[in-house]
């Protein structure tokens, strides 16, 4: 039986993990690059994702002259669509704002009484949007025949 301790070996220690190191390094480089992109996006966009309607022209970063993302509730009965254009009014904290969305179907669960975020610019007092995100609440309620009447007045749900 060979009881020689390993320490007296002249041979160099054999390589571990059979030289599969570079894929891990490549992934790490990608992760670091991705991290930089995400942090940049976070600082430039995520911290203050939108301005509320009543903050336009009042809050820092919500100046009417620049491209904005504005959040408000779609006012009941204000939605009018013809062709590619949807006109509606958003309201928040008692201040309302007319919006013209000219990029086709707003998408998502866009409807009256839901809170939306509209991306766009002001032209002649109207906020012209080219992108809409529909915020939905964290409330989930079963839809069934008995409560169809409730479903129609979604404004009450949002309140």
């Amino acid at each position, binding site marked *: 039986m060979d009881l020689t301790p390993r320490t007296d070996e002249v041979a160099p220690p*054999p390589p*571990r993990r059979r030289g599969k190191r570079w894929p891990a*390094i490549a992934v790490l480089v990608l992760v670091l690059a991705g991290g930089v992109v995400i942090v940049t996006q976070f600082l430039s966009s995520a911290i203050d*994702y939108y301005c509320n309607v009543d903050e336009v022209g009042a809050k820092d970063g919500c100046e009417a002259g620049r491209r904005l993302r504005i959040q408000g509730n779609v006012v009941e009965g204000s939605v009018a669509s013809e062709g590619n254009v949807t006109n509606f009014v958003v309201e928040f904290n008692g201040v309302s704002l007319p919006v013209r969305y000219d990029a086709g179907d707003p998408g*998502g669960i866009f409807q009256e009484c839901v809170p939306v975020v509209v991306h766009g610019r002001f032209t002649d007092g109207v906020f012209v949007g080219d*992108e809409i995100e529909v915020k939905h609440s964290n409330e*989930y309620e*079963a839809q069934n025949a008995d409560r169809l009447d409730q479903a129609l007045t979604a404004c009450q749900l949002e309140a």
Partner: protein
Amino acid sequence: MNRNEGSAPVATTHTPSTASAPAMTSRPRGAGTGTTFTRWLGIVTLASMAAVALFGLVLSPEDVVQGESVRILYVHVGTVWVAYLAFVVTAVSSAAYLWRRTHSLTWDRIAGASAEIGVLFMAVTLLTGSLWGRLSWGTFWVWDARVTTTAFLFITYVGYLAVRGLGGSHEQRARRSAVVALLAVIEIPLVHFSVKLWRSVHQDASVAGRTTDVTLDGLMLFTLLLATVAFTLLYVWYVLHRQRVMTMEDALDDKGLDLALAERRREAATNGVSNGAPSATGEVTN
């Protein structure tokens, strides 16, 4: 690493196996990663996953505002819960590895297995979130606080797995990755409270921890809790198996080292007899 399992392991294992040739085809006892416990766990997991499918797709109701798309909720929330849990387990195991009294590579392997499963589940969270976003928000991706921080958490743990693959000894791997795991886990509260800290398109939590004000329909809530339990069972099942596979990989790695050392030793011994003297005289002449 320091296991010395005899000088010629290849020769000793081969002789008895020839006597029982049919036994070679069937799996030797204890060679797989399954035990009685994991087999039962697997059965319970699969049954509960089937129940989730039944409740999630058939028995639970549509939502008043979102309609059918609300069903994504069960997978989306169930998987992200498991991902959080997995990353916390990774951090706790890493701490247990670093702490002198509980120092063991088993903790490191649990940490690694847990992180792998966590990354897998978080990928499902991001994917389902993206699809749900398309249906309800109207867009696949939003650079808002919740989505951005979640993406950051995800790639952090992809980075953690890459750090585990950097090579070196098992102890080096364990030490490096444990430090990363303890730093990365701090991001979880940031992600969870991002919808409160910053303005977000994403909704708040419906089943919050401290406030008992649950804003979910009864059967929806039941389905969500069922999904959370089922995904947690699935996580435990996966981690147990993955951790055992990692133990085998490490053992194989050590075995490879032992064999390589034995080879070098034999090489050195033969070189010492035949080449040792000429090289010594060569040095003298130079």
